[in-house]
């Protein structure tokens, strides 16, 4: 038995080693065959991501809601559109989406390429018209040149805009966190409370049933028993009970910097999130079978939060790019 767990009759060393094996980081970032990596696409996507001219009022960029200074979210309960209108769901982080199976809280986009232009054209979000955006970008010499380098022989189009933004987004990966150093064998990287929390996360609390793997998500959809009326994926796929009120499991990387929590931003602290899963959810037929009363003790809640705090990485600062200027001024 591991000394770290002896007080609680925790897992054997072999059981703990098996648990830890599930959280090893991949060594490379995957890029799709029909949009392979190129530095030119990353550079162009980086510019587009931070360019407010992608919105109808030129006041809002992708980075307005996916701010690198706020773990690529906006720190708000729910997002805000270009007319300062409140949106229905929280802005999700874009960390680690290269590995995502689907995008958006309800999974309606199957790839980053499919997702990238959605918020640009959505009336309640960036409210831009694609023909107008193509004209705007085509009038900027710096963009004409950057598109030509990234997509030789292709016109500036919704497709190439999406490919560039998607390629940039795939490079947004959370770095090494104390948890990763522990997984790699550094016993001093996290404290005993966090180690106990990791075991509880994988056993009694059943968190790992959905928050699985190094990104801490199964990319699946679950009703976790929140009381708002949002039907989530159930609105898109009627007739499938488990999809009612179901949302995509968010990854937990850098979660300490990503409050407030849940798809509607209704929970402000990690401890309250844990209490929700312990006994705060509503019972209904669509509730995920993975969500059940846990009867966690205060010590277990403390340890789970201590563990979650070890998932925060110190990442390199992302520069706000110098944007190409229009020749029409």
């Amino acid at each position, binding site marked *: 038995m591991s000394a770290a767990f002896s007080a609680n009759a925790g897992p054997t060393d072999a059981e703990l080693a098996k648990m830890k094996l599930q959280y090893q980081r991949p060594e490379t970032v995957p890029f799709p065959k029909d949009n392979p990596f190129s530095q030119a696409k990353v550079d162009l996507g980086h510019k587009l991501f931070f360019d407010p001219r992608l919105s109808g009022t030129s006041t809002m960029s992708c980075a307005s809601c996916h701010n690198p200074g706020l773990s690529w979210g906006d720190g708000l309960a729910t997002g805000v559109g270009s007319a300062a209108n409140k949106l229905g769901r929280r802005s999700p982080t874009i960390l680690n989406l290269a590995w995502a199976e*689907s995008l958006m809280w309800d999974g309606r986009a199957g790839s980053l390429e499919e997702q990238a232009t959605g918020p640009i054209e959505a009336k309640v979000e960036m409210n831009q018209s694609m023909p107008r955006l193509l004209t705007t970008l085509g009038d900027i010499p710096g963009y004409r040149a950057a598109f030509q380098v990234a997509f030789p022989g292709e016109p500036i189009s919704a497709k190439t805009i999406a490919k560039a933004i998607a390629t940039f987004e795939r490079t947004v990966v959370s770095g090494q966190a104390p948890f990763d150093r522990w997984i790699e064998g550094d016993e001093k990287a996290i404290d005993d409370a966090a180690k106990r929390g990791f075991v509880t996360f994988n056993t009694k609390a059943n968190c790992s049933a959905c928050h699985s793997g190094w990104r801490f998500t199964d*990319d*699946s*959809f679950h009703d976790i028993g929140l009381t708002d009326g949002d039907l989530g994926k159930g609105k898109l*796929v009627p*007739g*499938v009970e*488990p*999809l009612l009120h179901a949302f995509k499991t968010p990854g937990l990387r850098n979660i300490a910097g990503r409050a407030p929590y849940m798809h509607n931003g209704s929970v402000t602290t990690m401890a309250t999130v844990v209490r929700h899963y312990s006994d705060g959810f509503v019972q209904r037929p669509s509730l995920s079978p993975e969500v059940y009363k846990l009867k966690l003790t205060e010590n277990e809640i403390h340890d789970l939060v201590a563990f979650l705090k070890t998932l925060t990485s110190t990442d390199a600062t992302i520069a706000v790019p110098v944007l190409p200027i229009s020749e029409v001024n």
Partner: protein
Amino acid sequence: MSTRTWIVAIGLCAFVTASGAYAAAALVSQKGKIFTPDELTQGSGSTLRIDNDDTIPHNVQVTTPDGENRNMGMQKPGEFADVVLDKSGDFMVRCGIHPKMKLVIHAR
């Protein structure tokens, strides 16, 4: 023999016939949140039965070779979905609840 016994016997025959028909089709199982097998070749025009041998519900969603999306609804543990391979080409199958679950059926 009472009337009731006959009804039960006829019902049993119907069940055996149905089971026999399904047994003739290749089976795909959903267990542990994976399709097994996750790729197979079937004759076009045939029907493939996908069982839910898991402890949780699944939702078979099919994209046909020409891009049509077919939602087969929910399959609780012990239930199944019949996928009709009415075209030639690749049918892409995913679970709508657990989209990491993927199956490719080559209909030839």
